[in-house]
């Protein structure tokens, strides 16, 4: 029964971990340990809320109206150049959009590619009424219904021009009905008449969006000369679409849109601050909860710790029992929290009828990392409680 050397020490550490896991398992399954459940629930709810808020932040950073689409790949200009526009300030645009969209469409695995041009434009009914400034989004429709800027392209005829599809919010502002003629004026030197083909609910709430054929909007806004577009949307196999997009625009950013990108948080200050606050608050709440409940648990466990000391457990082994208990409980709580957070995000999206919160595989290591940091911040207090245990007070009676 010698305990000299590293072998016994390793076996002791393994034994202590096994003992701790066995105790936790038995407490969870064969006893009514309310405090264990409370710790797990506290960590799980905090992690779930953190993921939900982070998901919302990522969705927020992912873009608003102009990116509420169902494309598989999105191509955007990758330059920092900003040029002036009549209506304000706009960034770099993609050139030769129609031609390159055609070349992308010709690639195997690509279903469709559409340049997208976004221009705020004044619309007014031809037969009189108040005008309104709405966001016109120019697209190239095909036979399949696609979602662009939160609206379906199905009502745009691929062969006929001068058609527009209004979002319900746009229709409210402008009083436009189907088949009614409207006049659009972008600059002081030109008007174009359009027919309203449909008024549709948008997947993006309160967005005054109007879908229009790309070439009509290019002509109206003066973007036709260089065949300009703000972005290119590509549908089809993601790998093929991304490769075709990169070939067509080697200097542009080609983004697969199947999963939200946490990296987008760094491009959006509001989303970044929101997620950062959620992280700090989440760690704080999680650590406070673990500190309180595990401190109380260890306080109840003083007799067990005293027995371990009496039968010869070294001090570090006794403290290891407490530390491993705390971290394992935190970790299990985090795993439950990830599941709850996932469910919460899907529930939020289902209730909203739109993607208000995004999910990403990186949420798993993120949540576990956050929980472990909270656990490490919390562990000193239970350790202090454990270290203060006096064996004679607990088992000497």
């Amino acid at each position, binding site marked *: *029964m*010698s*305990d*000299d050397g590293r*072998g*016994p*020490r*390793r*076996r*002791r550490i*393994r*034994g*202590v971990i*096994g*003992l701790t896991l*066995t*105790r936790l398992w*038995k*407490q969870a399954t*064969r*006893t009514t340990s309310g405090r264990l459940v409370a710790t797990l629930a506290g960590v799980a709810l905090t992690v779930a809320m953190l993921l939900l808020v982070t998901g919302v932040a990522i969705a927020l950073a992912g873009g608003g109206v102009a990116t509420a689409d169902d494309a598989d790949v999105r191509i955007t200009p990758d330059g920092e150049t900003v040029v002036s526009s009549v209506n304000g300030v706009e960034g770099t645009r993609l050139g030769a959009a129609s031609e390159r969209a055609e070349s992308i469409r010709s690639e195997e695995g690509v279903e469709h590619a559409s340049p997208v041009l976004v221009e705020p434009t004044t619309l007014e009914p031809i037969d009189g009424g108040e005008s309104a400034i709405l966001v016109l989004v120019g697209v190239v429709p095909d036979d399949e219904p696609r979602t662009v800027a939160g609206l379906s392209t199905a009502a745009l005829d691929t062969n006929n021009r001068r058609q527009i599809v209004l979002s319900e919010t746009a229709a409210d502002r402008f009083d436009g009905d189907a088949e009614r003629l409207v006049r659009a004026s972008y600059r002081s030197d030109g008007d174009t008449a359009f027919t309203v083909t449909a008024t549709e609910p948008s997947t993006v709430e309160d967005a005054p969006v109007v879908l229009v054929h790309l070439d009509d909007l290019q002509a109206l806004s003066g973007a036709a000369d260089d065949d300009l577009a703000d972005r290119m949307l590509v549908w089809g196999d993601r790998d093929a679409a991304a490769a075709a997009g990169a070939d067509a625009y080697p200097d542009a950013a080609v983004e697969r849109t199947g999963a939200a990108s946490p990296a987008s948080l760094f491009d959006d200050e509001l989303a970044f601050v929101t997620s950062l606050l959620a992280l700090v608050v989440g760690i704080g709440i999680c650590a406070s909860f673990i500190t309180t409940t595990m401190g109380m648990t260890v306080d109840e466990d003083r*007799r*067990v710790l005293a*027995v*371990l*000391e*009496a*039968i*010869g*457990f*070294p*001090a570090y*082994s006794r403290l290891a029992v407490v530390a491993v208990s705390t971290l394992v409980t935190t970790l299990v709580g985090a795993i439950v929290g990830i599941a709850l957070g996932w469910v919460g995000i899907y529930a939020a999206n289902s209730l909203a009828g739109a993607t208000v919160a995004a999910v990403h595989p990186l949420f798993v290591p993120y949540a576990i990392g956050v929980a472990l940091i909270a656990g490490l911040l919390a562990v000193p207090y239970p350790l202090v409680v454990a270290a203060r245990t006096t*064996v*004679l007070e607990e*088992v*000497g*009676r």
Partner: protein
Amino acid sequence: MGLTDRLPRASRPSDAEGNAETSRGTAVRLDEVSHEYRLGSGRFRSGPDRSLLALRDVSLEVQSGTILGLKGPSGSGKSTLLHAVSGLLVPTTGEVSLLGIDLTELSSRRRTRVRRRHVGIVFQGFHLLPSLSARANVALPLVGAGVGRTKRRERATELLDAVGLGDRTTHLPGELSGGERQRVAIARALSTDPDVIVADEPTGELDTETGAAVLELLTALGRDRAVLLASHDAATLAIADRVVSLHDGQVVGRER
């Protein structure tokens, strides 16, 4: 076949904490040991300091292979003496030697190591871990000793068999009777094959019949170990080779 026959003593390497006398010699020696508990002490104490002299100049020896009984009323110092022998407290003055190792000279860490290697403790209240099975409870000291899982299970199963609980290995303490729990506690105290067994009121919470079975076990253990047994009960003390009477922390009588 008795317990000792079924569980022969394991040979162990020499101890790092001095020259352990593992042969049949003096296992425990107390030399003019006194201990004073300070009452009401602490950072936020109020009122005058009070103290309680729990042991006064106690000297005694216990040989391997003998059972020493300690008797006396509550507060006479029996438990304090057992705690000093097991290294759970360091007496205010005097020397406590365990197998030739002076416990009063050792740090807390080293006393824990000596206790782990040489002392088995049987508590009056059993003090089994409620969320662990009987086998896991018996194997617990072996975890602290760094024994591998397979050997721990084998040893614990062997000991539970020896105390007549071979069919209760997976039961939780809450599923065992008082006598069974105490037998598990005795098996736990034996798991590291200690040289000294310290038992504080081992039959205090048991009925007569169950207590007799536990005493039979302790008698068997006393054949090749030093056993220190504190009790109020005359029947329990009857198994002792010698009995020391304590009163107000002093030795007031020695029998046999």
